[in-house]
């Protein structure tokens, strides 16, 4: 894509916080008005379920499990990379949600609260297991000369050739391996942003960072992933 085409191409809008929260059974690609209507309906259902959960209703817990378990399972699995650990984490998350439902004040979306429980549980598990497989980012980040120009020129545009060289499945496997090498907190930010479609504010609430720190980590993680893909294709990460 040329510079002119880039400038003419529409930039993706920043994720809208309200729209990015989990709406059970909803695809993020749905039309906006329908999405807003379904979200309102879903919030009403949620509010009733949360009240019942706070009262210790087991059926409410199971209903909430049915609504959110797939999303939370995928988040935990991406962060942990291990099915057995993920099962333990999700078990803990729903048990904690049941026991501590009364501590949910409604200051954030209920789904954000669940994401927070999931990320905390997953990061805690990684800390305890000391199985951290993260690598140094530096080797895969872009590098610049003293005058601010790219250190390795020309920068190769492989954006169109990636799909020609690899099948979609292979590309996803490459990326999954690269994701696995991110620092756990960075991985959590990328998973919540790019896989779950949460806005920066909700991610910040879920991982306990400022919005600015979320942006910094997201950008650095993407630079690392880009570098890994570049090297995989035989080009410089710089």
């Amino acid at each position: 894509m040329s510079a002119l085409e880039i400038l003419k191409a529409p930039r993706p809008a920043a994720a809208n916080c309200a729209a990015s929260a989990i709406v059970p059974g909803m695809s993020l690609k749905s039309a906006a008005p329908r999405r807003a209507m379904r979200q309102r309906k879903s919030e009403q259902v949620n509010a009733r379920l949360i009240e019942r959960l706070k009262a210790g209703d087991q059926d409410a817990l199971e209903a909430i499990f049915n609504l959110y378990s797939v999303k939370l399972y995928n988040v935990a699995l991406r962060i942990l990379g291990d099915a057995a650990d993920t099962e333990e984490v999700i078990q803990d998350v729903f048990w904690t949600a049941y026991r501590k439902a009364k501590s949910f004040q409604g200051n954030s979306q209920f789904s954000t609260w669940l994401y927070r429980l999931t990320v905390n549980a997953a990061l805690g598990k990684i800390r305890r297991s000391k199985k951290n497989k993260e690598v140094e980012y530096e080797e895969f980040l872009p590098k610049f000369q003293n005058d601010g120009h790219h250190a390795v020129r020309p920068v190769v545009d492989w954006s169109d050739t990636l799909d020609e060289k690899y099948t979609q499945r292979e590309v996803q496997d490459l990326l999954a391996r690269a994701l696995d090498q991110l620092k756990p907190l960075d991985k959590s930010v990328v998973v919540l942003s790019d896989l779950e479609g949460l806005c920066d504010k909700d991610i910040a609430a879920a991982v306990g960072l400022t919005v600015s720190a979320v942006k910094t980590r997201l950008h650095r993680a993407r630079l690392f992933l880009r570098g890994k893909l570049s090297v995989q294709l035989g080009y410089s990460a710089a």
Partner: protein
Amino acid sequence: MAKPKRSSTRTTDKTCDQVTALVLGYLTDNLSASVRREFEHHLTICPDCVSFLNTYKKTTAVTKSVKQGDIPTHVRDNILTFLRKRIRRIGMLVIYILTQSVT
């Protein structure tokens, strides 16, 4: 005679390093109009940064396309069984405590 006013569309030259740091803000439409103008001006004169931006966008697109799996049935059943057992145990404990306090 009055001095001619500086054009408000005047751009300063950003380096590739500075442009790279602004990529996320550019793609999420979070740059001020003047910074965006400088960013876009740099793209018109720097093919390396155009390539960089394209590969950054492609990386993000690939990440967003990663497939989400379903929760395996046996995992789902294990978790639900665990939760039901725990809740039952709490219920029995509450009944026990209430009985003890009455007697």
